[in-house]
């Protein structure tokens, strides 16, 4: 087990590792086809201190928010740590996909700046034309654009500077970082976490997965996502165990890279969203697996989207011959608002599952499936980790007994203090220290089963998307009636995730016109970096309105899925 002092700063924790084990590995930066780059603790802290000196000269001060928009790069880690060392708050933001329209990217960043109060953007020269107009906007909070990858020739980078001393005003309860609770650009909710919240989380979650000094994390997860940032980056850094970081873009295209790294580095832990199990089982060629061994994996944690039993099965069967132990297949329920994990299944045991009667479950009750009745296999996300309490509540937020489906409410020692600059949204979800998640599930004994969402969020490949963002984008597509569009998520069993569906009212009647409209909708989705898988085109006044006069997502979703065929 690893025991942490949680009454300290992250930077001080890292300095301790550098002092005690300077030559041991902190981070392995992995790039396909290249020799992995190893950051020892000593090199990493030295490098971070030099970046910190330049950042300080550039005006970065404690309490300020620094948005980092940098692609997979070995210098990213010391830059991030440098921001942390100054007591400023790093906020990792997604590097824009080439599909994303520059205006949409700027708009998203502007909204984020408004809500998160971004002070500096640390990025690459390539993005300057896209980001610069924001700085020049008189109402912008962003003071300056910095390009730390270009500082390699700065004399400070080659000097021997002493490790940065944190600002004396900083305490373990000071804000340590800012992360966003969703992946879309328009409606992101910024969450501030303190040093103590993160270290408490590492302490408790580390116990839940029986973390030891011999563990090694391997991850392809993007660091703007809480699972990548907290589980696969902050946790190993705080615990002083190595983390292997793979480029998410490379992994999606060549998923065998994760196995390459696990096998060669003998990694023991990895976190994956459900779709990744299908993606790897489906897309990795047998002949790429010749030298791969997966015996070293101790716990593989399925998290960030609903856990599907079929995905675990497919993955376990496909890779059993490589030494993958089925008992490593575990699951967790997590969210940015509680730093990360809320529940976790027991390590060393496959995540348990149970077959529920589908109809009863739909009516809010868990009942074991009867013979020949439709069932739904529910996989447990485990039991609350220490420091976390979980309740299942009804619409009036009153507790429900075991087996009753309700909203999941969470209380945690690693809880956020509220969404930054958004008291209204905070008041909706935080009450008397409990965070009302908007997720639905039930409890049986100690096991918690997450089965759905109250909110309309669509989770595609572990990324949370708001239907409103997609509908806004699609509204501009030619041939559809503006405001008469619904976006929703539908289960994609083969991919182990959801796919985005659109229902749009249109006058287009001929086959050719309807195909043209569909293409316009897909292209509109691309401009906000989402892939629309199914398009249902309907005549005017087809959409069912809610009592508030707006088209109802759930009613229209059910109607489309039962009555319509998508345009192809």
């Amino acid at each position, binding site marked *: 087990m690893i025991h942490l002092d949680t009454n300290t700063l992250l930077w001080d924790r890292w300095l301790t590792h550098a002092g005690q084990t300077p030559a041991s590995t902190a981070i392995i930066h992995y790039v*396909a086809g290249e020799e992995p780059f190893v950051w020892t603790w000593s090199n990493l802290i030295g490098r971070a201190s030099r970046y910190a000196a330049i950042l300080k000269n550039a005006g970065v001060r404690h309490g300020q928010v620094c948005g980092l928009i940098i692609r997979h790069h070995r210098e990213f880690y010391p830059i991030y740590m440098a921001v942390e060392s100054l007591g400023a708050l790093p906020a990792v933001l997604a590097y824009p996909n080439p*599909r994303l329209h520059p205006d949409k990217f700027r708009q998203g960043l502007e909204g984020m700046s408004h809500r998160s109060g971004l002070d500096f953007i640390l990025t690459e020269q390539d993005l300057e034309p896209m980001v610069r107009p924001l700085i020049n906007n008189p109402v912008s909070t962003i003071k300056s654009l910095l390009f730390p990858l270009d500082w390699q020739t700065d004399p400070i980078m080659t000097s021997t500077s002493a490790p940065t001393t944190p600002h004396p005003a900083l305490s373990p309860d000071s804000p340590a970082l800012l992360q966003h609770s969703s992946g879309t650009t328009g409606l992101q909710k910024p969450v501030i976490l303190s040093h103590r919240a993160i270290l408490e989380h590492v302490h408790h979650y580390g116990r839940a997965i029986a973390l030891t000094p011999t563990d090694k994390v391997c991850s392809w997860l993007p660091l703007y996502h809480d699972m990548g940032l907290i589980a696969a980056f902050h946790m190993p850094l705080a615990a002083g165990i190595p983390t292997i970081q793979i480029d998410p873009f490379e992994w999606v295209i060549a998923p065998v890279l994760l196995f390459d790294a696990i096998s060669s580095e003998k990694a023991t832990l990895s976190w994956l969203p459900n779709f990744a199990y299908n993606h790897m089982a489906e897309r990795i060629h047998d002949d790429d697996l010749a030298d791969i061994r997966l015996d070293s994996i101790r716990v593989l944690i399925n998290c960030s989207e609903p856990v599907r039993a079929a995905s675990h099965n497919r993955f376990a069967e496909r890779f059993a011959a490589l030494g993958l132990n089925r008992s490593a297949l575990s699951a967790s329920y997590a969210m940015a608002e509680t730093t990360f994990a809320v529940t976790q299944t027991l390590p060393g045991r496959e995540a348990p599952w149970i077959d529920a009667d589908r109809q009863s479950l739909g009516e809010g009750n868990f009942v074991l499936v009867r013979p020949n009745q439709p069932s739904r296999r529910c996989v447990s996300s485990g039991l609350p980790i220490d420091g976390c309490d979980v309740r299942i509540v009804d619409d009036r937020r009153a507790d429900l007994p075991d087996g009753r489906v309700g909203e999941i409410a969470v209380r945690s020692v690693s809880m956020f203090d509220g969404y930054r600059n958004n008291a209204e949204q905070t008041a909706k979800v935080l009450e008397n220290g409990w965070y009302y998640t908007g997720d639905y599930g039930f409890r049986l004994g100690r096991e918690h089963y997450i089965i759905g969402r109250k909110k309309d969020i669509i989770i595609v490949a572990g990324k949370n998307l708001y239907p409103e963002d997609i509908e806004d984008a699609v509204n501009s597509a030619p041939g559809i009636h503006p405001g008469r569009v619904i976006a929703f998520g539908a289960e994609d069993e083969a991919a182990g995730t959801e796919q985005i569906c659109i229902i749009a009212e249109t006058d287009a009647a001929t086959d050719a016109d309807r195909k043209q409209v569909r293409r316009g909708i897909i*292209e509109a989705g691309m401009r906000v970096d989402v892939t629309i898988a199914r398009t249902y085109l309907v005549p005017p006044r087809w959409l069912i309105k809610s009592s508030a006069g707006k088209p109802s997502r759930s009613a229209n979703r059910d109607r489309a899925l039962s009555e319509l065929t998508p345009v192809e």
Partner: protein
Amino acid sequence: MISDRLKQIILRQLKLDDFPITAETTAPQVPGWDSLSHVGILAAIEKEYGIRFRTLEVIKFKNVGDLQAAIDKKTPK
């Protein structure tokens, strides 16, 4: 020069009737071509031509022209 055979595989995978695809076309320009559908397109090409792309090759494809060149190298003239 992009062969009609390659173009048809791409269009079929993306469920598109038609779309102008040239050697310079990149994935983000084509409706529905994202990183996940990209992997499906590569698998369809491998099946159709009876070839195999290596991991490093796959990561380095920048446009459809690169894809066509890799296919040409692996298929008998």
